[in-house]
């Protein structure tokens, strides 16, 4: 009974917590890339004379940017398939929020102990991205169509890397329950798998989060805003909110799968934060160092990297399964 109440309470707590952490990660992404680019970025400590006007910190700037959109007019184009166009952002958000219920946070196992939680979480993350494709397709804009097409192509190859890395770990740990994986012990073999499968997962995250060089679905110089061209107001805000949750969800999934047992006990929380910051830093470094690939180059690159690395992962995972 106590367990049930604790789970319910933690499910309620995790949503604002995930939003907050997602916003902080987005802030870090923006701030770090700004510093890499000789810019200032959103201020952590505001200049003294601007404090009365802008507040002491702009740490939540990514959130303000989203909230602003909720106050704007929402335009639905005439030529769109209205129902799909309007519901897609919300469905996408719902799936993203549902996914984070299955990913543990230090001190909060949430639903990660349920059978097959790894498959459920992966499915929910995929579904969330699927609806960022379906809505734009329904909008009837050529830019959105091209953006969605690129998104599909990118999605197929990045998903390949994602699945290969996640299930290599599942095979090595002989479990499809995230909680079992994240509470498992560490050893030299698992550390080796963490390096290779973690690298593949990071590569897959680049595609899922549209980090350069894989942001071609949103290439503003070519196709305006890509899938989001026709979206505005609340609907666009919902898509951005989804992205924040996805960023949190993928980082949390990475830590719980590849860095056990950080995501289990509340005492690991400081290390969890450090791991998350390092991950975001890695993503930022890739983001600022690269221009955008063409979609074909991106697919080639993914196939060249994901398949050999994935096969390597499986070999290591099988070896661990058989030997250890």
């Amino acid at each position, binding site marked *: 009974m106590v367990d049930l109440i604790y789970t319910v309470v933690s499910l309620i707590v995790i949503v604002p917590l995930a939003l907050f952490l997602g916003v902080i990660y987005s802030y870090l992404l923006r701030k770090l890339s700004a510093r890499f680019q000789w810019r200032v970025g959103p201020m952590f400590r505001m200049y003294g004379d601007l404090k009365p006007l802008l507040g002491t910190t702009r740490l939540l700037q990514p959130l303000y940017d989203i909230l602003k959109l909720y106050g704007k007019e929402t335009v639905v184009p005439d030529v769109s398939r209205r129902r799909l166009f309007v519901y897609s952002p919300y469905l996408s958000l719902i799936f993203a929020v549902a996914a984070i219920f299955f990913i543990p946070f230090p001190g909060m196992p949430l639903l990660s102990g349920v059978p097959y939680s790894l498959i459920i979480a992966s499915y929910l993350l995929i579904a969330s991205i699927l609806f960022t494709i379906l809505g734009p397709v329904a909008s009837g804009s050529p830019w959105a169509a091209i953006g969605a*097409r690129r998104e599909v192509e990118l999605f197929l190859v990045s998903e390949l890397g994602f699945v290969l890395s996640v299930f290599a770990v599942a095979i090595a740990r002989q479990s499809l329950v995230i909680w079992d994986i994240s509470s498992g012990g560490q050893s030299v073999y698992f550390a080796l798998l963490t390096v290779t499968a973690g690298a593949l997962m990071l590569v897959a995250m680049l595609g899922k989060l549209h980090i350069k060089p894989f942001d071609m679905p949103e*290439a503003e*110089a*070519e196709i305006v805003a890509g899938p989001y061209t026709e979206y505005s107001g609340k609907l666009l805000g919902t898509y951005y909110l989804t992205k924040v949750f996805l960023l949190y969800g993928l980082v949390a999934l990475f830590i719980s799968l590849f860095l056990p047992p950080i995501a289990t006990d509340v005492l690991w929380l400081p290390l969890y934060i450090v791991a998350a910051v390092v991950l975001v830093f890695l993503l930022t470094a890739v983001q600022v*160092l690269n221009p955008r690939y063409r979609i*074909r180059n991106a697919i080639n690159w993914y196939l060249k990297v994901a398949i050999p690395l994935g096969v390597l992962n499986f070999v290591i995972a099988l070896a661990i399964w058989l030997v250890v």
Partner: protein
Amino acid sequence: MKFGSTPDIAEYVRKEIYPDGLEYVLLRENRVVVKVNPGDLAKVAELFVKKFEARLIHATAVDLELKGFEVLHIYDFSKLKDRLVVVVKALVDKDSPEFPSIANITWQATWAEREMKELLGVKPSGMPDPRHQFLPHEWPNPVESGSIPEGYKFDGSSTTKEMYLPLRMPIEEAYQTLIPIGPYHPGVIEGQIVYVKVEGEQVVAADIKTGFHHRGIMRLIEQRGYNKGAFIAERVCGICSAAHGLAYITCTENLYEAEVPDRALYIRTLLVELNRMHSHLLWVGVVADVIGWKTGFMLTWGLRERVMDIIEAITGNRVNYGIWRMGGVSRDVPQELAEKAKRTVDDLKEECAKLLMLVADHPVVKSRLIGVGPLTKAQAYDGGAVGPVARASNWKIDVRADNPPHAIYDPKVISWEVITDDHCDTFGRTLVRVKELLVSCGIVSQCLEYLAKTTGEVRIKPKTVPLGAEAVGLNEAPRGELAYYIRASDKDSSLPHTIRIRTPSYRNNAIIPLMLVGSNLADVPVVMGSTDQCLACTDRLEIINERDGSRKSLTWDQLVNLSRRVSRW
């Protein structure tokens, strides 16, 4: 320094180049006017282009009121004879202003003829592409200048049926496969439309239309006189303002017997090269931005800011310098400032070299630029490419070497070189600009060294401009050859009768659709950016890929297949 002509050059033109002209007039700086009958224009063009490989600089017309229209074709013969430019003139009647079009002989004349048709109402007969140049294509009326037929009634209505359909596509098809890039689009800052027909992500046809910026600057100068003209000319373009200033001043100084002090010439070179430096840095940044590399954009623009600071310290302004005067410049560069600026420029050169080599060596940048927007030397020659676009196709043209403006580009005094590259694609254009930037650094450094060591006057009072004088002024803008033609008024010695400007983007934008076909949609902004288009300069262009009737033309399918083969991965 005085600027004169080789005395017997007009005789040379009569004997060696074209003996059948009606009249030969020698202008300053080896510009020779040859008057011919209007019917001979095509014959002359054929002779010049085919036999002497002369390059058409510009074709335009002058309204001589009661006398009629004077059609001008300006050819560059500088490869044949030092600094020789031949201006072919033909007087056509006002009532029937017809003359043969030369667009079939040298395709570059297409826009020029459409422009004069629209601006003056003359009628080049046999034009391959008679559409409007600045006005909307569906504009129902003939242009309101020149001759309007008697009893003609203005009709402002336009219906959907008459709507111009880009690339001759039916409306239903256009809804599915036509991507309009512009008139206002994040990839291109200024206004123009590039119609792109795509199959998947493959561009199969392209068309371009500008006309969103026409400000009538040439007319403004005609009304304000020579002195104020220098300031207006600078405002043609915000990025290459120094190049426009120098080209204008070169042109006006060619109207009278000009003398310019050496120190002024050095200051002019200094400014034009600083201008080129910041323009090229800006271009690298823009291309980095277009391929999605915000970091490259920020870093190059950070370096550009320092060049702008030097310019500001010298002239007091960042964009329009306002120091161009007939007979010199308006401001001196103090010796201390020159020394200080020289140190900054030398530091900057190292940093630029490092950063730009990083840009040119980045694997993802290379994958985005190599093979994109291919343009062979033959295509560049036929299409009339100028500047870095032509040089990247391994065609060595540079006005600074061939036909220098009134500044210091003498290889005996300043060591510099013309950069060419044989990549024939966007990567080649990047390399050319990056190397030119470093060459410009060298020139600036040498100029500053001279200015730091010497003193002297910077301006000699100009003489009165003779009535009815004519001149052609050329300069190498960062984007390519820039040409000014001025005809002085017959009545007032302070007013020009006609001024014509031909900007480099006018030419380079022409080739864009040619480079676009067969490329990936992701490369469209890169190809458009690779010419460093300056639409405020241009604003006048239109082209289709199917060059029906032209001699070097490829058929549509050939062109598509050719370009697809090139771009396949």
